[in-house]
């Protein structure tokens, strides 16, 4: 029996639904009824989906015979899957790094710094990179600071230097 990555994702969905149903059993009925009823239906459908997927592969049904997925944007044709995978890992590292930077140095500095470093590292000129970073900085200062008067989240650096709002 061949099990693929997409099957593991379906298993993950099944586990999530199972966990949701189990958690809801400890709530009063008026709070849990929708989770119990719809969650059970979802769990059943996900299990059937997994069985269909594995059976289709076992019977070697060609992927071409599977109808196109509706209510979804068309997938991008990958010309170089290896490079795409590397690119995906790269951007996830950037996103996690940005979150860490927000936590350490604060949103106001982290976002322009992210724009500057990302644009510069992937080929933009210094002038363009600085312009883009300034654009985001000005947007935050103009809208969020001056019009919406937002309280920015505390950062470690802000706490150390007593710069938080």
């Amino acid at each position, binding site marked *: 029996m061949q099990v693929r990555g997409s099957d593991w994702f379906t298993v993950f969905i099944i586990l*999530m639904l199972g966990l949701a149903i189990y958690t809801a059993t400890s709530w009063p009925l008026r709070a849990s009824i929708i*989770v119990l009823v719809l969650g059970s*239906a979802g769990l059943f459908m996900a299990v059937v989906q997994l069985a269909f997927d594995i059976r289709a592969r076992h019977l070697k049904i060609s992927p071409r015979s599977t109808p196109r997925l509706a209510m979804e*944007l068309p997938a991008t044709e990958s010309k170089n899957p290896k490079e795409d995978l590397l690119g995906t890992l790269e*951007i996830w590292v950037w996103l996690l790094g940005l979150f860490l930077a927000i936590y350490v140095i604060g949103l106001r500095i982290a976002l322009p710094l992210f724009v500057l470093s990302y644009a510069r590292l992937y080929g*933009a000129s210094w002038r363009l990179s600085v312009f883009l970073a300034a654009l*985001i900085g000005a947007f935050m200062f103009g809208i969020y600071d001056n019009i919406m008067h937002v309280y920015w989240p505390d950062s470690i650096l802000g706490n150390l230097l007593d710069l938080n709002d």
Partner: protein
Amino acid sequence: MFEAFYLGLSTLASPEALAFLVLGVVLGLWGGALPGVGGPAQLAVLLPFAMLMEPVNAIAFLIGVTTVGNTGNTFTSVLVAVPGGSGSQATVLDGYPMARNGEARRALSAAFMVSMLGGLIGASLLFASIPVLKPIVRSFGSPELFLFTIWGLSMIGTMSAGAPLKGLTAAILGVLLSTVGQDVKSGTMRFDFEAPYLWEGISVVLISLSIFAIPEMIALAARKRMVADVNDIGTTGIWQGIKDAIRHKWLVVRSAVIGTWVGIMPGLGSDVADWFAYAHAKQTEKNTENFGRGDVRGVIAPESSNNAKEGGALITTLAFGIPGSTSMALLLIAFVAVGLTPGPDMLGNQIHYIFIIVIALALSQILASGICWAMIRPAAYVCFFPFYVLVPIIVSLCFLSAFSAHFSIYDIAALLVLSLLGYFMKINGWPRAPIVLGFVLGPKVELYLWLSIARYDMEWIWRPGVIILFSLITITLLFPAYTAWRRGTAEIGTKE
């Protein structure tokens, strides 16, 4: 009636009122085009200024701000797959593929044309329906509203033709995500994991950004190319878009009527009008195999309905004093502050204000579409920007937009966690739109079901409105099976 209309028209025709209308439209478009800035947040900021104005100026300004956001947010939905607001989520499904196919200008042009037409139809229905609407809306209780939301959910099965089980499971996941936080009926904390951040639940902004925008930006960053898959921006897109809108005029009208009706229903929420219209188009149009791949009808239907719903929402806000959304609630506060009395009184001695609102609504739609048309050509070049310009800017806007949900760093953490879900759904072939639709409809399904049982016990299932709506749901579920069966019979006949 005609005297009141003339009085309304002549009052609004003053240069000062028109200037405030233009200012409101420009601000409304600007807020709509920037994710996280428009909608109720923008209205809340502008409200104190509007309350100091003369009534007619305040009406012109606020109608301009409130009713054109859905026209402005088409830009980001089509060009970079970032729904600028909750009313433009369905536009992404065909608008973004059109942009990737080099048809951004056609998609935008068609969207702005039908936005204007939809808005005008909504305004006309607002004008025409006030005398007859009262009994119809009053006949809609919680059982009918429950069936109405179930109708919305049942459309998912028919729309996810390639993977109905995955579509329905994704919708259920969306409903379950919507239950996170305090249950208002029992006070129970659901799925909060003892984290105070989750007590208020997850924002729909976070869901739409993490399910659509961030996964698309990840794909763009991984490909290291631009949005468009072609190098030519084309020269005929704008006229083609206008022709598309005219060619599909009946779809425009039907979608606008759906949008107006959804807007009229108090509590149904304006977030679902575009989905209802998209589902309707997919079900009733011929040759729908290109839906989701860049079919202009997939842009026309949601854009027509999401602007028409403003007229519908104003009907209940003005005639009954019942706001159908947060924006309408804020608008109601402003109207009361400047001396209007929304409710049945408004149909009597203040009826000329209703005409001012109808005319301002119609003018706003025309003005907004005109301004957006002028912006199509420069905006379409966004599709040809290199990834290292678009990715950091859009990711930053997404982070800021997510942060606007509760102004907490946990908003950004939640965005990343939910983006993982959106990303894995995308790469594993799970449709993502149903999760958003399930999330939007989930709280309403639960609330109206509970209200129906609490108010009517099980007697509610015999109400005439419930029976009619139940029949419509049955038709919705069986219609695709019937057409598939008929197609199959026809194919067998041809082979024989």
